[in-house]
């Protein structure tokens, strides 16, 4: 039954809307294996390509972290690892995890796969540009990997690449190609991301299907959208600092380099400002935290809602919080620079803005918890990971409140407390969401479930193991164990108890790391032999589960695009036969469903 006109719909005469008459999108059709799987323009394939590349380079960073932990606890096991290698590993671990794994996986991987499906589009608006975006990212990864093989090895400047030490000869990779390749790789990454980001933003803004208003979108899309806008605004700061530092290193300019004496010789630089680099870097670096966190916030909201069979509590506030956190993330950057000798008033301002961010963030946490309240909770593996995220994020967030205060940060800044804080809030918390998301959407991508037994083992070891690794680190920080140290001797400052604690952390880290290999095994075997999933196995409302084919085929939605009649959270609606009403179900198909007055 269709309405005669839109006016009839507005007055409630009929409720079914005719499909939107849109000019057919020039869909790209692959003709060969190469254009189908390699230089492919289908966002779903590009998403998988992003994810595979990001996970591959992430594994390198994981192995590097094992080596670092072995050096700290059992140095006799890694005799080949000297101070230079240790700093190179610290640098590469940090940079890979933050930029090349988390950013690429959340935005490039989940963004590409989910955005068109969730908003009801056939593909991204610029599919060719999208394909180029992935290959530019791939090139950035290759350049990064190449730096392992150049004379002098990769840079060991720390992931923040602070000058002047980043480009001086005393730093590993500082006078060779290491730092240059890192700067070039980052610049390439930013260029590739800008191409992809343009696609994500435009697809969400312009290519949604009929009825999909912005405020009907799942929070996953809101998170990815806001994070992409942040990235488009923040990444220019990274590329600007990369260009200037490359020139300082190669052409002898003095943007960041002051006059210094290097190995007894006066360098050719003079008058540059290292602090200027720090400002630029953190103007990128702090929004980067939220570029990773906001998609995680969005995804976890959807996981909790679907697996608790309840609409997300305070949807509008969740959207507002995402937008407000995104905006605030641009005015807190100098809290990373409290120890740079800044004006106390400056520190006061940034401490205040930093603490204000806790308000919308806490609001989100409350809303997640209230969503669980009296929900019909299904303790599936995605739900377990989502719950673990809430706990971990609160833990990591609270230590952030400590460090946001100048007076507390100054003594703790160079200790393991900071390492524990950012690994909890920016490492473990988003990674738990990534795992939850993979378990959740794996049946959509492959048509099969991941193995549940292995999944539960993976969850418990990862969740509890992370706490065994990072909780003791807070203590180490409090007793003053400095971070960035290559070796821990027994001394009046570093006691034997901290040495044994370090060994404990290392054993836990290796156990957690090995469990990730089990997870990879699970993915590989389940993709082929896993239990077959029926259509929409989690009984979710959002559009990605409503495609005619599972896994969704090219073009996503068959002959006609879906028409959206409701938001993505119509769970447990009173009167409805089932406890979920998909977004594309017309009111006439669920005549008994009642909407409670709000």
């Amino acid at each position, binding site marked *: 039954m269709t309405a005669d006109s839109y006016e009839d719909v507005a007055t409630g005469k009929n409720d079914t809307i005719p499909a939107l008459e849109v000019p057919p999108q020039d869909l790209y059709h692959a003709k060969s294996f190469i254009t189908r799987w390699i230089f492919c323009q289908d966002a779903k394939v590009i998403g998988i390509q992003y994810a595979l590349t990001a996970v591959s380079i992430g594994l390198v960073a994981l192995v590097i972290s094992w080596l670092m932990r072995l050096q700290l606890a059992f140095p006799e096991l890694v005799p080949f690892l000297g101070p230079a290698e240790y700093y190179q590993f610290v640098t590469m671990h940090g940079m890979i995890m933050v930029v090349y794994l988390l950013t690429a996986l959340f935005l490039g991987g989940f963004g590409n796969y989910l955005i068109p499906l969730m908003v009801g589009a056939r593909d991204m608006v610029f599919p060719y540009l999208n394909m180029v975006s992935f290959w530019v990212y791939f090139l950035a990864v290759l350049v990064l990997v190449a730096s392992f093989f150049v004379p002098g090895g990769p840079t060991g400047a720390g992931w923040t690449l602070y000058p002047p030490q980043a480009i001086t000869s005393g730093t590993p990779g500082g006078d060779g190609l290491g730092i240059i390749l890192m700067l070039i790789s980052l610049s390439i990454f930013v260029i590739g991301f800008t191409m992809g980001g343009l696609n994500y933003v435009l697809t969400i803004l312009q290519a949604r299907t009929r009825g999909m208003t912005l405020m009907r979108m799942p929070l996953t899309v809101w998170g990815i959208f806001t994070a992409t806008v942040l990235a488009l605004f923040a990444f220019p700061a990274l590329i600007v600092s990369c260009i200037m530092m490359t020139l300082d290193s190669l052409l002898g300019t*003095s943007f960041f380099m002051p006059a210094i004496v290097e190995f007894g010789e006066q360098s050719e630089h003079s008058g540059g400002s290292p602090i200027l680099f720090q400002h630029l870097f953190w103007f990128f670096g702090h929004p980067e935290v939220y570029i990773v966190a906001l998609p995680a916030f969005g995804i976890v909201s959807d996981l909790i809602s679907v697996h608790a069979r309840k609409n997300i509590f305070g949807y509008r506030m969740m959207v507002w919080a995402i937008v407000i956190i995104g905006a605030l993330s641009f005015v807190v950057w100098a809290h990373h620079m409290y120890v740079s000798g800044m004006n106390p008033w400056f520190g006061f301002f940034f401490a205040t803005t930093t603490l204000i961010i806790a308000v919308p963030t806490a609001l989100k946490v409350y809303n997640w918890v209230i969503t669980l309240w009296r929900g019909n909770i299904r303790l599936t593996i995605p739900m377990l990971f989502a719950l673990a995220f809430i706990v971990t994020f609160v833990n990591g967030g609270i230590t952030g409140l400590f460090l946001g205060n100048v007076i507390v940060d100054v003594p703790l800044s160079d200790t393991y407390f900071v390492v524990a804080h950012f690994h909890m809030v920016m490492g473990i918390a988003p990674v738990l969401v990534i795992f939850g998301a993979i378990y959740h959407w794996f049946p959509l991508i492959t048509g099969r479930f991941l193995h549940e037994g292995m999944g539960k083992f993976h969850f418990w070891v990862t969740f509890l193991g992370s706490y065994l690794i990072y909780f003791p680190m807070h203590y180490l920080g409090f007793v003053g164990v400095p971070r960035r140290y290559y070796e821990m001797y027994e001394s009046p400052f570093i006691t034997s108890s901290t040495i044994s604690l370090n060994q404990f952390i290392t054993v836990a880290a290796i156990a957690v790391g090995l469990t990730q290999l089990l997870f990879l095994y699970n993915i590989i075997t389940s993709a082929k032999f896993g239990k077959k999933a029926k259509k929409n196995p989690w009984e979710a409302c959002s559009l990605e589960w409503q495609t005619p084919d599972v896994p969704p085929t090219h073009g996503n939605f068959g002959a006609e695009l879906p028409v959206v009649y409701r938001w993505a959270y119509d769970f447990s609606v009173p009167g409805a036969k089932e406890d979920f009403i998909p977004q594309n179900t017309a009111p006439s198909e669920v005549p008994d469903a009642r909407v409670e007055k709000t």
Partner: protein
Amino acid sequence: MKKKESIFDLLAQKPWDPNQAKIDNMHDGATIDLSKGKLGLRFIMIVSAIFFSLFIVTYSDRMVYPDWQRMPEPWLLWVNTIILFISSFVFITTQIESKKNQFHIVKNRLLLIGFLAFAFLIGQLLVWQQLIIDGYYVSSNPSNAYFYVFTALHALHLLGGLVYWIITIRKVWKPRDIVISKVKHAVELCAIYWHFLLAVWFVLFGLMLFS
């Protein structure tokens, strides 16, 4: 007709409310009344503007230090500026002809614009050459470094524009294969980007001139 709504109205919507649902059901899915090409170009210009703004911030931070020495402004820079200005002006006339479907004129004008763009780039290289002969090396003073960086990055943006210029030329030359409106759209986008590059150059040149 698409009703304009403020971002605050948008964020205040209650998507679960039955009355809101009736309005939402009629939404055609697009937020902004612009083609994807125009909107994409705007995003590129915003990102590019942020990119140059950050450079300008660091420039103004650096120039207050006592070791800052102003660069001379070779007369050729003024010539180059005029060339860029003329090419932007020619683009305005090209757009008018494109609207009138006078594609034989559009073809000639596009070629002229390309010629002017290359003339500008060669002019900038000549400025570089002159400055290097006069001993203004990139590392001799921070103001020199900024001059070379600004001109190089602006030239890179122009080269990027020339890539789209080639795409536009291909569309204009083969209008039979392509819908006419798409050709006009390509010319329009190319023109907007050219005006943007002129604006960026005015800001950068002005900054170097008056600092």
